[in-house]
């Protein structure tokens, strides 16, 4: 590949940062309005009292915890997928990794809001943090909610590092191509990157370390999220398989989120030359595998409960299987298994459109799955006298919608500020033998001498 095509690659990928159309501002305004409305709704809920939600006795957790588990699940898109693909050195990963890693960071930030939004007294959320205070009480380290706090902060820190490390050479590239305050900002972000051999080696080993370190962290995070349920003696919650079940579901919904994000970027930023059908084809295969794994977990869980025939569990079992939650339950099965399986198992249908349709199904299905874990168990706990119902109220629905808008808004802004496809990784990928250093220096000179 010649320098000319190298330059085209750089231009293509940096174009979204240099040209801003009215469409961008309309989108930002639109999404920003929804996010602001969601924040307003939250303050309204705090001001009026938590009773503005549909939560009641006995359904003390509902939409907010569903959203919490859902978004933490989506966050498994990035890190796990990109870390695995990096470690096995899959060549097709290069245009995919950053799209994925960004999802992780933003989905975690959104997901981590929900344990705070759902608190009765959210202004005291910092009591979960161990710090020396005049109250002289540490958090209760036996509580899975405290484990959550540590798991999520560790994962967030790790995935921010994992995202930032491979961005350094790209920051340097932007620094060298801009002037004024942008030059200054990206210069700071580039951390003095010059592209020397030593720096490349350090970056490579740092990324290798992070890719290995982030895997157990990612697995532990969703396991700990599942412990929020499985540590309580609640029918159908108290299960030994919840850890792996949740992790599998998280990766499943994560891949679906990634496919949708990639297809949207491809369309809106005209990245057709970089995000090829083969990327969707490969991710579609991964999604198909996770769909089968998900189906296996649900089958194993349901069959075990049915044979166990424990009265309190059977109540929850039947209310989901053919009771009042059955419409949601069977929608979930169709969305998570029937649709992805029938689309993705046929090579002819594993196109971009096919993958996106299957992914939309999976997102709906996985949200329902979390809802069906949280609510039916709580509404049908042991004593029939204390059974209850749940119906969401506008406050919860508005906040739920606004988190999706928040995800899109953060993603839009990110794609405006940083090349959403890693420029240097793509270049390295296309010259596997020249490997980087010489090429980068030459190009660097090219840009500095011929601005």
């Amino acid at each position, binding site marked *: 590949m010649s320098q000319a095509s190298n330059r085209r690659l750089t231009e293509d990928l940096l174009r979204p940062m240099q040209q801003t159309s009215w469409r961008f501002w309309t989108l930002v305004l639109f999404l920003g309005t929804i996010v602001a409305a969601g924040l307003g709704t939250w303050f309204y809920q705090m001001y*009026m*009292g*938590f*009773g503005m939600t*549909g*939560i*009641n*006795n*006995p*359904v*003390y*957790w509902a939409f907010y915890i569903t959203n919490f588990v859902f978004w933490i699940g989506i966050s498994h898109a990035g890190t796990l997928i990109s870390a695995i693909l990096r470690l096995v050195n899959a060549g097709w990963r290069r245009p995919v990794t950053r799209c994925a890693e960004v999802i992780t960071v933003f989905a975690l930030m959104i997901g981590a809001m929900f*344990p705070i939004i*759902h*608190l*009765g*007294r*959210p202004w*005291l*959320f910092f*009591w*979960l943090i161990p710090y020396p205070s005049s*109250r002289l*009480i540490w*958090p*209760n380290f*036996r*509580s*899975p*909610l*405290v484990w959550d*706090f540590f798991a999520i902060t560790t994962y967030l820190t790790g995935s921010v590092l994992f995202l930032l490390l491979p961005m350094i050479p790209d920051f340097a590239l932007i620094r060298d191509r801009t002037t004024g305050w942008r030059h200054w900002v990206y210069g700071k972000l580039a951390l003095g990157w010059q592209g020397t051999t030593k720096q490349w080696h350090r970056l490579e080993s740092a990324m290798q370390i992070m890719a290995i370190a982030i895997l157990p962290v990612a697995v532990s995070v969703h396991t700990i999220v599942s412990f*929020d349920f499985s*540590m*309580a*003696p*609640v029918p159908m919650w108290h299960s030994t398989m919840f850890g792996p079940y949740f992790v599998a579901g998280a990766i499943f919904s994560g891949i679906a989120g990634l496919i949708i994000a990639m297809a949207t970027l491809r369309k809106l930023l005209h990245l057709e030359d970089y995000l090829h059908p083969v990327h969707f084809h490969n991710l579609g295969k991964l999604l198909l595998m996770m769909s089968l794994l998900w189906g296996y977990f649900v089958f194993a869980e349901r069959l075990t409960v049915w044979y166990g025939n424990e009265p309190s569990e059977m109540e929850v079992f039947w209310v989901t299987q053919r009771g009042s939650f059955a419409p949601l339950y069977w929608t979930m099965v169709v969305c998570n298994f029937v649709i992805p399986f029938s689309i993705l198992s046929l090579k002819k249908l594993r196109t971009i459109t096919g993958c996106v349709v299957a992914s939309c199904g999976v997102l709906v299905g996985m949200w329902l799955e979390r809802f069906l874990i949280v609510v039916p168990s*709580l509404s049908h*706990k*042991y*004593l*029939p*006298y*204390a059974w*209850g*119902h749940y119906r969401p109220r506008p406050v919860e629905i508005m906040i739920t919608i606004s988190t999706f808008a928040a995800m899109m808004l953060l993603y839009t802004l990110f794609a405006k500020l940083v090349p959403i496809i890693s420029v240097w990784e793509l270049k390295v990928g296309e010259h596997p033998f020249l490997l980087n250093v010489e090429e980068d220096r030459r190009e660097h000179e090219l840009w500095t001498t011929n601005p």
Partner: protein
Amino acid sequence: MPRKWGMAVDLDRCTGCGACVTACHAENNIPTVGPEQAGRGRAMHWIRVERYWEGEFPEVQLKFRPVMCQQCDAAPCEPVCPTYASHHTAEGLNAQVYNRCIGTRYCANACPYNVRYFDFFNPEWPKPLHLQLNPDVSVREVGVMEKCTFCVQRINATVGEAKAEKRELKDGDIKPACVQSCSARALVFGDLNDPESEVSRLSKEPRGAKLLEDVGTLPKITYLSRQSQT
């Protein structure tokens, strides 16, 4: 030996009158939430009288079961609380420290008996009922969990009085509001570590059983099962 507070509930004696519920509301400053909120499932009764119908009409039988916090020895609500708002006292009570509660509601989910109640709004009492609040019990604000305390304010006051008067505490000196108001004497409260106390004697009766014993919570409330058929 430290005291271990417990209760026996004689289901043969319970008439389902609900006096215990009313007394508990008055003693513990429990707000009444009104019909709309109650319809949403937010009624708060630290003790409730559960009604179960058995059989088909006209051969139908109504059974009552007063259910309050079972003061479990292995309480599922305690380990899950991230702030120690729900914790075990030396006398075996499941205490709830309102000021530490941040409202995760995890304890209420973990509780198999559904006897923990959440303040969905700041409490309000229609005038002039706001003048009859019990000064010994704090009023809970929005966003915290609350539950039966075995009238810990009465326990502490009576223990303190006995100490000041330098006398031993006798069985039956302490009566939580529900016990005091039960005209059928279906509820008996006392020290389970005192083998002579009435509650110890009743708890060992052959017709005694714990509620949801197989969940493994080791409750300190014993239900004496119903023998009569009327």
